[in-house]
């Protein structure tokens, strides 16, 4: 939940059963939660200055660096408890993602995928850490930068492996299609592989985090809105009951969000390795 939403809910004294007949739509969180005020502005065109997003980005980078520092500081052949956590993560991604999508060759890109996974996951997890509570990936710029990086990379790998013509022909001409249908298929494949693919790759973590954050914010603000101890008598009890339901839903959905955050990071690297695998493979 954003600071503005908390303040809006707390400041206006807007509650269920209140005197001023205040509706929930007056305090309901909206998209303005994703445009926090800049902490520091430089006045440069097309920039937002340093916002909460920038700070949380730094926090999540430090989190990832701290994770690797703690787990691999004293690496040994027989891993300790912390080191085996890191090893389990790497083995999991190798067996479930890179080997599946790229084969043995994919081991070369395993460090990249592990890094991308942890980085995205820590950026997502910012959304449920108390006090921070804004997923970095709920701003399109951050997943878009990672998606552009993967996009450039799979094109570069394909061109290096199979040459410019080999790579682009393999991407836009589906194998086994009859000649007469190619004029129809090639434009679709171009739009699919070179436009829709990077856009959806960035959009997926973004939209999932945006909707998840809004969901949590609705329950948090709604719980506060429905809590009205001053309503008097039965209505007070009722309002406590209502906000208790909202609190339970908030906690349940926080757990659910944690799962979605890990899943989105996993899906991101899954698709990244499937794109890289296609580029490595060439024509199919």
């Amino acid at each position, binding site marked *: 939940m954003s600071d503005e939403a908390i303040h809006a809910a707390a400041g206006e004294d807007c509650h269920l059963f209140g005197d001023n007949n205040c509706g929930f739509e007056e305090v309901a969180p909206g*998209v303005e939660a994703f445009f926090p005020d800049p902490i520091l502005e430089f006045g440069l065109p097309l920039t937002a200055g340093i916002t909460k997003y920038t700070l949380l980005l730094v926090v999540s980078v430090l989190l990832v660096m701290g994770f690797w520092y703690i787990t691999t500081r004293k690496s040994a052949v027989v891993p300790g408890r912390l080191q085996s956590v890191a090893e389990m993560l790497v083995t999991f991604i190798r067996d*479930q993602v890179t080997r599946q999508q790229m084969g043995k060759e994919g081991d070369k890109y395993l460090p990249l995928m592990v890094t991308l996974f942890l980085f995205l996951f820590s950026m997502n997890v910012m959304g449920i850490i108390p006090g921070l509570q804004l997923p970095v990936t709920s701003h399109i710029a951050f997943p878009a930068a990672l998606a552009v990086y993967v996009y450039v990379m799979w094109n570069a790998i394909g061109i290096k492996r199979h040459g410019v013509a080999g790579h682009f022909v393999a991407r836009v001409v589906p194998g086994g299609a009859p000649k007469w249908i190619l004029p129809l298929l090639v434009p679709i494949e171009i739009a699919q592989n070179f436009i829709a693919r990077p856009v959806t790759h960035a959009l997926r973590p*973004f*939209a999932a985090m945006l909707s998840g954050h809004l969901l949590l914010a609705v329950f948090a603000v709604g719980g506060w809105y429905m809590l009205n101890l001053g309503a008097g008598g039965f209505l007070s009890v009722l309002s406590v009951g209502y906000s208790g339901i909202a609190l339970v839903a908030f906690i349940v959905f926080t757990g659910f969000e944690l799962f979605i955050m890990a899943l989105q990071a*996993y899906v991101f690297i*899954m698709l990244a390795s499937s794109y890289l695998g296609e580029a490595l493979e060439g024509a199919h």
Partner: protein
Amino acid sequence: MDIEGNLNLIGYGLAAIGPGIGVGLIFGLGVQAIARQPEARGMLQGQMLIGFALTEVLALIGLVLAFVL
């Protein structure tokens, strides 16, 4: 009776039907395939998640457009 609000939300609700059916089919058939051939679980799960991601993005695009348009 007055009804206020944004028509986009109804559109998004309709747009989410398709991906909903798709995700259900993917996981339903995926679980069925795993039940028939438990040893292929690892490979099937990977394919299931790719299919899930490709289908889910349709609902997410709808969500983004509901806000943007």
